[in-house]
């Protein structure tokens, strides 16, 4: 046996035995994160002391210990609980079930991903029997909460199937211990009072698209038969008013929500878009970048943009939203809420694209009108283009066969960030995720190469913007208010 020199032993005792940390420099600050989703923002001196000298102030040492950065002082109960919270999706099956009830649509949006067809083409209507079989499969999921999302095309064109499927879901719910959410994504062009009443009575949450002021909205969302913007606003007001005035009802009426897709025409109008949401009493805006999938991929030269342009838009938008919040106006941004929930509360936001592994097949399932089942709606769109590589079965298959399909397993493996060489060491690894479908569509490879991925640049940039804004205590106060006691957001 060899004995250690006393001096040497003391040094070892005082040094910090750091776990594997990931870091990123944002302006003059260093963000360090660990696998448990804890983060710390250090200045240059603190970072140098930690990494090179392995010695920090007592205050910082305490913080490093409390957040699980020091191997010798780990509170495993707390750390595991935090890890489990932020990765709760690993403990159950698909919770989001998308039913594409028809591809018929009367809009011809410039960025449409859903491969819509003309309104006379009822061959793409989902028969009720397929919708019921899809619902049956969804109820086999091990998830305690199921969200059914009716999509299209314009789903209201196949009202018979939509209404029957909703009734069927509510019937099945009675004999199940699962919590059920139902939502419908509609452009409202064929909405009427009868349909609206049915949806409200069955507690269906309503989501539409609002791309901004009238001129911009109508430019993006082409509708030759009427004014798309006016139809949207008319029904938004209707559902808002029904929500605000509900009293003594046996059912809950949800506040309607709207999605915004950012085309290259939208980039100049961040203030106008946000003001439009405020004006229409919508307190959450979801600033979604375009995905190069489907029709948008073909039109990319006309409507697309690079990550730099989107990030400038996003930063300006978030700063404007924060300035409105400081004036007491209630408006939030959904991407920021989802990321802040992960960063501040270690809470999975339900956004299946930002998971490790991604939700393809294990977090969400998309049921096509003809009974084919895909990993996700984006996977379905790739299938429509002729490459059925993200198909995981049909409604004739059993739930287990679908989950156990080679495609589901392949997507899980390829979207595991531990297998991605840029992601595995990225500071945002605990909060982020990759999308095999977007990788395949943009890089011809389901693994993808994040060094050149525009999607990666966009999320990396959004994280940078949020962490930078979090440095200001006033912003932090607003961010905290956005994620306090909020219900899970499912998109």
């Amino acid at each position, binding site marked *: 046996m060899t004995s250690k020199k006393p001096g040497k032993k003391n040094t070892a005792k005082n040094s910090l035995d750091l776990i594997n940390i990931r870091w990123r420099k944002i302006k003059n600050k260093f963000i360090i994160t660990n696998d448990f989703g804890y983060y710390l923002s250090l200045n240059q001196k603190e970072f140098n002391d930690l990494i090179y000298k392995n010695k920090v102030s007592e205050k910082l040492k305490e913080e490093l210990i409390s957040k699980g950065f020091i191997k010798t002082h780990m509170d495993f109960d707390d750390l595991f609980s935090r890890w489990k919270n932020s990765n709760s*999706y690993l*403990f159950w099956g698909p919770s989001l079930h998308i039913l594409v009830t028809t591809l018929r649509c009367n809009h011809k949006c410039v960025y449409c991903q859903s491969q819509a067809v003309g309104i006379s083409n009822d061959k793409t209507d989902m028969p009720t029997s397929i919708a019921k079989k899809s619902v049956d499969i969804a109820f086999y*999921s*091990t998830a305690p909460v199921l969200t059914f999302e009716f999509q299209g095309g314009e789903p209201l064109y196949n009202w018979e199937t939509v209404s029957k499927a909703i009734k069927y879901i509510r019937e099945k719910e009675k004999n199940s211990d699962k919590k059920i959410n139902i939502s419908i994504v509609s452009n409202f062009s064929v909405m009427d009072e009868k349909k609206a009443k049915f949806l409200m009575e069955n507690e269906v949450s309503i989501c539409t698209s609002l791309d901004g002021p009238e001129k911009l909205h109508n430019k993006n969302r082409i509708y030759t038969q009427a004014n798309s913007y006016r139809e949207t606003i008319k029904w938004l007001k209707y559902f808002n008013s029904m929500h605000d005035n509900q009293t003594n009802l046996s059912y809950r009426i949800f506040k309607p929500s709207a999605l915004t897709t950012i085309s290259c025409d939208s980039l100049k109008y961040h203030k106008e878009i946000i003001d439009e949401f405020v004006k229409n009493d919508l307190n959450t805006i979801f600033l979604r970048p375009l995905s190069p999938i489907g029709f948008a991929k073909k039109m990319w030269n006309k409507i697309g943009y690079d990550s730099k342009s989107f990030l400038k838009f996003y930063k300006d938008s978030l700063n404007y939203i924060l300035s409105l919040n400081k004036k007491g106006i209630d408006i939030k941004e959904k991407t920021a809420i989802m990321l802040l929930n992960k960063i501040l509360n270690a809470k999975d936001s339900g956004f299946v694209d930002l998971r490790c*592994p991604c939700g393809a097949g*294990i977090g969400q399932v998309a049921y096509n009108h003809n009974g084919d089942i895909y990993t996700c709606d984006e996977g379905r769109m790739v299938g429509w283009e002729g490459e059925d590589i993200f198909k995981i079965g049909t409604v004739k298959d059993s739930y287990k066969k679908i989950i156990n399909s080679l495609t589901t397993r392949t997507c*899980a493996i390829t979207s*595991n960030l531990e297998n*991605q060489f840029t992601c595995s060491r990225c500071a945002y690894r605990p909060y982020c995720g990759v999308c095999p479908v977007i990788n395949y569509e943009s890089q011809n*490879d389901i693994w993808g190469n994040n060094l050149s991925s525009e999607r990666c640049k966009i999320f990396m940039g959004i994280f940078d913007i949020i962490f930078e804004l979090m440095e200001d205590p006033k912003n932090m106060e607003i961010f905290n208010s956005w994620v306090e006691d909020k219900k899970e957001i499912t998109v």
Partner: protein
Amino acid sequence: MKYETFEDLYSYEALNIAKNIIKDGESVVITKLKNKNIINIDCENSEKIFKELMNEALNQQCRIDLSKKNFKVSQMIITKALISALGEEPKNKKRGRK
């Protein structure tokens, strides 16, 4: 044009994946020998294609090496996700042992 690469630098797997990703990859034929891989590119701009192939092969090789390094944690995450979705408990080989 004929090129040679060493298996311990760029594996046959990495080269083949790269071949399927790059544009004009159909003109590439890869043959595995003992410690080497022979790459035959039959077209006019073979040098350009070879460079693209090796660039992509480097990406794939890095990923393959990382997958081996992170094999345990990676498998744990995927197994947990898939088994939870299936609703089955993992079979414990040591069940019954004290």
